[in-house]
């Protein structure tokens, strides 16, 4: 009996540790963001104040609000493009046998293993040739490197699992491939598309290196770079309150998104990994 009790207690202790360890840093950021002025320099474990001054400061001074819009724009357009390009390609790869298909799939997948810095020099050259430096389109284009392979792969696996006979009737009727894709498969792949779209959104939202390299003014920057470069009035002052406020502003929507779509995201991640 005692053994039983100890085991259960030990188990719940472990659970508590896991919860605290996972949540505490974010909780502390929220705590700090609500402190104002010099209260920040005093270490507190529980909320002591509730001031919105940091949030007001970070949203009104500088261009942080604009940075959020930039990130939103880039992430949405990236997702849209990935889905369009990815779905059409996945359809071809999933429903048709042709020589070298496996190799092609593997090659596409291998792109996601490129170190970002390995394409950085060459991509810089492409961006400058297209005259896209410092434009948000340079980011949209670059982010497809990560989002496309993953999207193609997951959607291909998804489409491949669908029964063979689905499109036969439509073929008999002489429907064009585009029609078949849009009218038959698109509705069926909707859940997979939501998942890959979400994951692509999160990837694009978080990206740092390309955003750092291809944009140069504050008004063109995206959120990760803006937060990384948040500086105070002098060279030596680090505005922790503002940084935490900015962090919270940017993270809360993501956390909410992730919690709502938990199941989809988890299945998307694991489908991507396990099915491969």
């Amino acid at each position, binding site marked *: 009996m005692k053994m039983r009790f100890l085991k259960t207690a030990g*188990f719940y202790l472990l*659970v508590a540790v*896991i919860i605290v360890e*996972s949540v505490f840093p974010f909780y502390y950021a929220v705590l700090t963001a609500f402190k104002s002025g010099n209260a920040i320099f005093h270490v507190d474990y529980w909320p002591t104040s509730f001031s919105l001054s940091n949030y007001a400061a970070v949203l009104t001074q500088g261009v942080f609000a604009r940075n959020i819009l930039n990130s939103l724009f880039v992430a949405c357009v990236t997702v849209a493009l990935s889905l369009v390009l*990815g779905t059409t390609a996945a*359809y071809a790869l999933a429903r048709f046998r042709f020589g070298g298909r496996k190799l092609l799939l593997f090659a596409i997948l291998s792109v996601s293993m490129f170190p970002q*810095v*390995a394409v950085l*020099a060459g991509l810089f050259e492409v961006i400058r040739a297209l005259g896209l430096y410092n434009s948000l389109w340079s980011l949209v284009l670059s982010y497809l490197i990560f989002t496309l392979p993953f999207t193609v792969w997951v959607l291909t696996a998804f489409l491949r699992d669908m029964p063979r006979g689905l499109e036969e009737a439509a073929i008999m009727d002489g429907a064009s*491939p585009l029609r078949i894709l849009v009218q038959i498969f698109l509705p069926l792949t909707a859940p997979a598309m939501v998942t890959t779209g979400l994951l692509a959104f999160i990837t694009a939202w978080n990206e740092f290196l390309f955003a750092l390299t291809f944009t140069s003014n504050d008004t063109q920057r995206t959120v990760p770079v803006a937060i990384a470069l948040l500086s105070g009035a002098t060279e030596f002052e680090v505005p922790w309150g503002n940084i935490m406020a900015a962090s919270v502003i940017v993270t809360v929507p993501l956390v909410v998104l992730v919690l709502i779509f938990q199941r989809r995201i988890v299945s998307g991640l694991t489908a991507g990994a396990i099915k491969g």
Partner: protein
Amino acid sequence: MAAGFAGHLSAILRGRRFAVLLFLTPMLVTLAAIAAWPLIRTILYGFTNASLSDLDAARFIGFRNYLDTLTLRSGRTVHTGLLADPVWWQAVWNTLRFAAISVSVETVFGTIIALVLNQRFPGRGLVRAAVLIPWAVPTIVSAKIWAWMMNDQFGILNDMLTRVGLLSHPIAWTASPDTAFLAVLIVDIWKSTPFMALLILAGLQMLPRDVYEAARVDGVSPFRAFFDITLPLIRPALLVAVIFRALDALRIFDLIYVLTPNNARTETMSVFAQQNLFSFDKFAYGSAASTLLFLVVALITILFVTLGHLDPERET
């Protein structure tokens, strides 16, 4: 009649095939333009003396960025180049060390969390949601939050450890060369363990429950059950998770750049390459470093794939 029908069908299919393969083109062209071509250009730049001051005036110089021999007036020879650069090798060592330690720790912690989440207990949903939070927080944000927690003067980490008595005086976690590496590890482990946990959990959830019933009836202890039954069965899922994490760890840039900039003890290959490309005026040198990093990652990927007998189309 049947033969005619079959011939008709195949004719349609052939026409369709072309049209459908056309679907592949936009995606392939995009990937070629933003992935394949830039990679080739980076590799080519590594063989030139390109400088950002005048990219168009780059001249081909062969392997000189990789290894070069200078003969001094006195006859002494000196080696320069990436392969003779102690800073590069330090970066390589930092990267390998970081990847090995972080992936191992994340695998162990991830397995523990996965095992917990695999049990049915009240509040399981809450735990799963909580565990997802580190993964949801953007990398830069986690770097900043932890930098704040690890602040040497106002950081809560120092405060906690001092109160508990583990520290006698505050440590500058991210600045001090001895602890910077540990700081980066801590943040990465915090951030990436959820990912490992989820993948391993997926593997666990596919295991048949009756095997455990049988083991329990036979009086096998949970520990033995884990090592003798569970572990072998989730090996494929574990391997996939480890590969993914290892590749990410080898390429890591964001965390190091934001948390411990300009620190020789934590500089990874990606950071080394990026600094040479854009901060120091060594564009060609940075390109060569990027190429080497690519080769290392490619090699390890191939190794893992062949060792793990992975197949992109295998059904689990």
